[in-house]
């Protein structure tokens, strides 16, 4: 239901290799909302979404994350995905020899089975996949290629959005999905996100630039600096950051 809390992060501290990156994050996300998380390089934006998706390299030092009433941090990455968490990767990895079609079919089967839904027939799956590929402007040939192998930067990002639309999660974590895209590709990706968003969905959109927010209207904007959320607001906060830069905020926080 719209307005229902889907994700609650409380006092989250985490790091990698003994270095603390997140120094106490509190954030509440409700169904129907799009939250943009902005911040300079190295502020911990990517760390935050990767921890939410369950990337194994990170150590959680303190805090709690409740997702749909469950202790998210106790769940394996695949359990989280089957429960409706999706991470669009900043740098999707190549998986040699594994066809896109085969990969997505296995993923969708696993998720549908968990939801108690019937597996799609080959025909139904192919139709759905083609439809989603069209929506993100990907050619059919790409579905026969190996996962991310030889994909251009733009193709990799479209492929991530294709997966978002196909797997239809509850909470989408988008890790700098806009980076490195030309304006046309950016529009396609933004259209995909807008198609996905809705009253039963939530989005955490990590970005360095406010450019994508011209196309994906956020409900909330947070600025992350040195592992802490230093400012929260609406759309206007993003514009202000763009106009004045992150240093302005740093000074404002320190003073």
């Amino acid at each position: 239901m719209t307005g229902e809390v889907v994700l609650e992060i409380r006092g989250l501290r985490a790091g990698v290799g003994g270095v603390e990156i997140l120094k106490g994050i509190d954030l509440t996300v409700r169904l129907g909302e799009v939250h943009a998380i902005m911040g300079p390089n190295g502020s911990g934006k990517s760390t935050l979404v990767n921890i939410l998706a369950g990337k194994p390299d990170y150590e959680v030092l303190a805090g709690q994350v409740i997702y749909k009433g469950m202790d998210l941090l106790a769940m394996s990455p695949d359990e989280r995905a089957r429960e409706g968490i999706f991470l669009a990767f900043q740098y999707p990895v190549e998986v040699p020899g594994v066809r896109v079609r085969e990969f997505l079919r296995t993923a969708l089967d696993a998720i549908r089975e968990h939801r108690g839904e019937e597996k799609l027939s080959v025909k139904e799956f192919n139709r759905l996949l083609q439809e989603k590929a069209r929506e993100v402007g990907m050619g059919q040939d790409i579905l026969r290629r190996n996962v991310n192998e030889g994909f251009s930067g733009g193709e990799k990002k479209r492929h991530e959005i294709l997966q978002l639309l196909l797997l239809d999660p509850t909470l989408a974590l988008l890790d700098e999905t806009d980076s490195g895209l030309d304006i046309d590709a950016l529009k396609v990706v933004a259209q995909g996100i807008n198609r996905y968003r809705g009253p039963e969905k939530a989005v955490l959109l990590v970005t360095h630039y406010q450019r994508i927010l011209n196309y994906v209207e956020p409900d909330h904007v947070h600025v992350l600096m040195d592992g802490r959320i230093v400012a929260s607001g609406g759309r206007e906060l993003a514009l202000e950051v763009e106009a004045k830069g992150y240093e302005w905020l740093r000074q404002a926080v320190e003073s």
Partner: protein
Amino acid sequence: MPRERKVISRETGIEEQEYKWGFVIPIKEEVVPKGLNEEVVRLISQKKGEPEWMTEWRLRAYRYWRSLGYIEPKWAKVYHPPIDFQDIVYYAAPVRDDGSRPKSLDEIDPELKRAFDKLGIPLEEQKRLAGVAVDAVLDSASVATTFQKKLEDLGIIFCPISEAIQKYPELVRQYLGSVVPYTDNFYAALNSAVFSDGTFVYVPPGVRCPMDLMTYFRINEAEVGQFERTLIIADRGSYVSYLEGCTAPIRKRHQLHAAVVELIALDDAEIKYSTLQNWYPGDKEGRGGVYNFVTKRGICLGKNAKISWTQVETGSAITWKYPSVILKGDNSVGEFYSVALVNNYQQADTGTKMVHIGKNTRSTIIAKGIAAGHGQNTYRGLVKIMPTADGARNFTRCDSLLIGSRCGAHTVPYLEVRNPTARIEHEATTSKVSEEQLFYLMSRGITEEDAQFMIINGFCRGVFQELPFEFAMEASQLLRVSLEGTVG
């Protein structure tokens, strides 16, 4: 292939979930006493009703083998205690209750038919595998060959080699030992002396064999060594796809399988040879399992001929084999596609030899090694370009995948280039299943185990896609079963 998960080993009483092909077929077999001497060689020849020339050939091979003084080749990177060649049974074959050999399918013990059904290799043609003709070899004898009549109509000969020696002596005499002479190596000599059964194929000029031909090798008796001999001749402009599969019961002791396979492709002919090797690999501590010491070689005798080897090696305690191609005819093509997997204490030393003699000859080598547990996997390959081989080309790619930290992968490529116009490329990689790839797949809802196999299957794709479709599915399954419990 059978799907039931639980097999109780008769010998050890242990439930063996890992190797579901490990049952013993309860049938009567005629077994020659252990040990090897000229009398045994003569006896085998006599049991097969062979002509004098064949007996003499065997004896010459035997004498050569004896002259080697039981000294096995030592150059492969495999370790095992010395084999007592006098402690092996060299002939065992199914017999009927009255002691006679079954003459037709109707006379075959129903137990045997049931067993082959269970192995997924029905012997009755009406239950046939889609479009595959089968020669079933149990221990030392072929027990049934399907579709012979249909193939005969096209002039294709597909029969046990013991039958070919009697029916087609000219062809056999001309080609047997022409690619792998009995002096080739220790095990080739031994095989030539005591070979029991295997398959003979002849495809006449211009004929494209309409179905895959398959031999299914099964070891059954406890003390028996299996000495398969296969000879395939593709005459001018013909084509044949040949498949081979192998399994054996679970036994505490090691068993020897020493095969020789010879392929001959004349002008414009093509032979595609695919193997799924699933001999009993031994238990988790490395007890038992088959020693698979095999010499496989083909020759492209004519111009534009092509020989392609594809192998998926998941079984055996030790695998020692180098399916090779001699590229004699101008413009001839040799290919080798291999997946070799070792787990627990398995050892594999496998690869190929490509010998370029003719002009513009081309060869491709794609070898994928997977090592898990304490397994040791070696790729050993030779690319030899003779002075006559103007414009020869070779591409070699060797990839190794390691699972866990106690296994080993080794690559030993030999290159001998004696012609300056040759072009040789070699690529090699060693990798582990990466955490990043695993996380990516798991973040889409795929379990860790499924993600691992998806990555491993992807690693093998370049080889699997060379297999006939059903064989490729089987290979993928086999890989998964062989690796069960090693991942996750």
